[in-house]
């Protein structure tokens, strides 16, 4: 199967010391440098996301998830689809540790999300990059600053920031818009800034929550292509969406959720809600 081969390829690449070199063809980096591999935390060879009978009941009694069993291997590209209220966004919130698991077990890389103390949450979040439907950019900061902000927060030095932000912007194709403000950009471009920000701290997992929801359909494809491109850089990419056309177009693994349980999980599958 091509996908399996893909995965195996990626895995072997991930063990190589130069795994995270930016792509030559799209990178305009003046220097070649190595991303800090330490932040990947590849302690067990490869990581995964594992849901074991995960349940989530909100304090008001709403049962959002009724026992999700799901395994996402390192370097996979997964669409999570489902109707509104199926439990997609709850699943995302559990992954970003906005909400905690009520019952069951959720492990991401080496982090056990239900047992994780609050002080470790920031360090966990540095390993996942999140992209939202509404971009969530700071409008009084330029594109460059928005990306740099994420690095500032984890205490990167100014030198590293100056060196890395342009290379990340070039990955998303915004190297020329570094000095622009978000309000001067189109929706697609804003989402790319958000993606660049998600990539800033070199996370191993990218979670995109309805990334194309607020974007012109013509540009949605660009964003999806960009996510595929990031996936090829050996990142696990989880895209939560309900856009049938896109899912069908890319023929990746599709996990369908309905009423808080996984109803189908097919590699190279189609959207069927």
């Amino acid at each position, binding site marked *: 199967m091509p996908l399996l081969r893909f995965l195996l390829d990626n895995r072997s690449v991930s063990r190589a010391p130069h795994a995270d070199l930016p792509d030559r063809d799209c990178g305009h980096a003046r220097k070649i440098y190595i991303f800090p591999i330490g932040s990947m935390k590849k302690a067990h060879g490869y990581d995964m996301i594992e849901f074991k009978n995960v349940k989530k009941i909100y304090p008001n009694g709403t049962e959002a998830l009724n026992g999700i069993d799901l395994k996402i291997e390192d370097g996979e590209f997964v669409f999570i689809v489902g109707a509104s209220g199926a439990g997609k966004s709850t699943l995302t919130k559990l992954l*970003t540790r906005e909400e905690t698991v009520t019952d069951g077990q959720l492990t991401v890389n080496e982090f056990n999300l239900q047992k994780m103390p*609050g*002080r470790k949450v*920031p*360090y*966990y*979040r*540095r390993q996942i990059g*999140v992209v939202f439907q509404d971009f*969530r950019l*700071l409008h009084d900061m330029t594109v460059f600053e928005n990306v740099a*902000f*994420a690095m*500032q*927060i*984890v*205490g*990167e*030095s*100014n030198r590293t920031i100056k060196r890395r932000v342009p290379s990340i912007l070039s990955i998303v194709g915004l190297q020329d818009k570094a000095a622009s403000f978000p309000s001067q950009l189109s929706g697609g471009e804003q989402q790319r800034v958000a993606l660049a*920000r998600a990539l*800033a*701290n070199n996370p191993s997992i990218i979670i995109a929550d309805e990334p194309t929801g607020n974007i012109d359909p013509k540009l949605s494809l660009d964003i999806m292509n960009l996510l595929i491109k990031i996936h090829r850089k050996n990142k696990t990419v989880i895209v939560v969406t309900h856009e049938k056309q896109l899912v069908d177009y890319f023929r990746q693994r599709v996990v369908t959720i309905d009423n808080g349980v996984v109803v189908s999980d097919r590699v190279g599958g189609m959207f069927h809600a």
Partner: protein
Amino acid sequence: MRRYKLSYFFSQAFKGMWRNGMMTLASVTVLLSCLIVMGCFSMLVVNIDHNLESLGDLNEIVAFADTDQPYEEGAKTVLAQSLSSEGKRFLGWSTDPDAEKAEYAAGASYTVDPAHAVGGIITMYAVWEGGVTGDGYRIRYNATGLNIEGELPEDDSVYQEGASLALADSLSARYSTIEFLGWSLSPDAEEAEFLPGGSYTLSAEDARGGVITFYAVWSEKQTFATYELVYDANRCEVKELPTDSDVRLARIRKELESLDNIAEDGIVFVSKEETLESEKEKLKDYPSLLATLENGENPYPDSFQITYKDNSLVSTLELQLSEIEGIYKTRCRADIAENIESLKSGVILIFSWFMVILFVVSIFVIINTVKLAVVGRSKEIAIMRYVGATKWFIALPFELEGAIIGLFSGVAAFFVQWYMYGYVQKMIMNDIQMISILSFSDIRIMMLIGCLVIGVITGVIGSVISIRKYLKA
């Protein structure tokens, strides 16, 4: 190595303050007034303490002696020590100037006997070995216990036996209408033997101790309930003739020295003259009061300033002092100190409540100010949290904001207090000289550090409470 830049946090903090300027101003004002109240209070306490110190050594008790008071009948006292005169040996004291043997030894105790008194005065004559022989006779006049207008007549001449002389003229009583009848050789006479200005032929039989005393005879006989004791060297040259008051003070001093709980060199005698002088010094700005002191009799008693060792045994000491004959009153500085201490604790109590309320208010205002800043940046904070900012990274700018508000308030409070203190000090210095006020330079450093530390702590507490509430949600 990852480094967080302090400038980032400060710029964020200042931005936050700038964004909600009015609220920042309000919290600075509230905290400022809180600090000013606190400052006034601590300055008051410090000055009370200072005045306590300036009261002098608190381990001091003052015992007032009434040694110039006359004796009552039957009172017990001690006689003076030996006199010394060239070529003569002192035997003791006697009430009879012609006695050859001493009735009382030097320093012996003596019970006041009205029979020894003449006109309310008991005279103790020194008894010398071999007796005293005079070169003639002297004449003395005695008012027989009545205050008279003018001086008693004096006669310095030495007369031989058989001499004829004229007696002094009549006396007139000072405060009463008692009439002068004449002179008599006996103090108990009810009728005058000699008329004023009458003549007298000297007879050795009339003399006692070489002195012939003429007693004034008054139309009304004087009676005495109290008696004074005086010493007479009995026609001998002595260096210093003791007074009864000195003798009694010496006795009190001796008794004081025998007490426990008295510090070394802890007994200082302050004579009534010294007290008068020091009181005059204190009253020099009040001429009318001073005039009464200068013209009248000295109203102050002799006193002993006693420094004691153990503060807890003061009451025992006071009791012991009160039992000493001749001490009629004690004044303990501890009482004054206690009063001031209780004033101080009252001040502390009242202001503590004030401060608690003001601090709660200022913390609430700061909570709200910081909350405004937090809400204003909530979007940014949400993004920070998604990207993996640690809590302290998010909270630090807000805590800094609180700290800066506190710092501003502290500095402002310091300068306001400086100005206020100078003003109040000038006012008090001019009007009430009894209170001494510390100069601001003495408490400057304490005030500055206190204002800054309390201001900053309050600011930080307020912002921590505010941001904690927000970060939890």
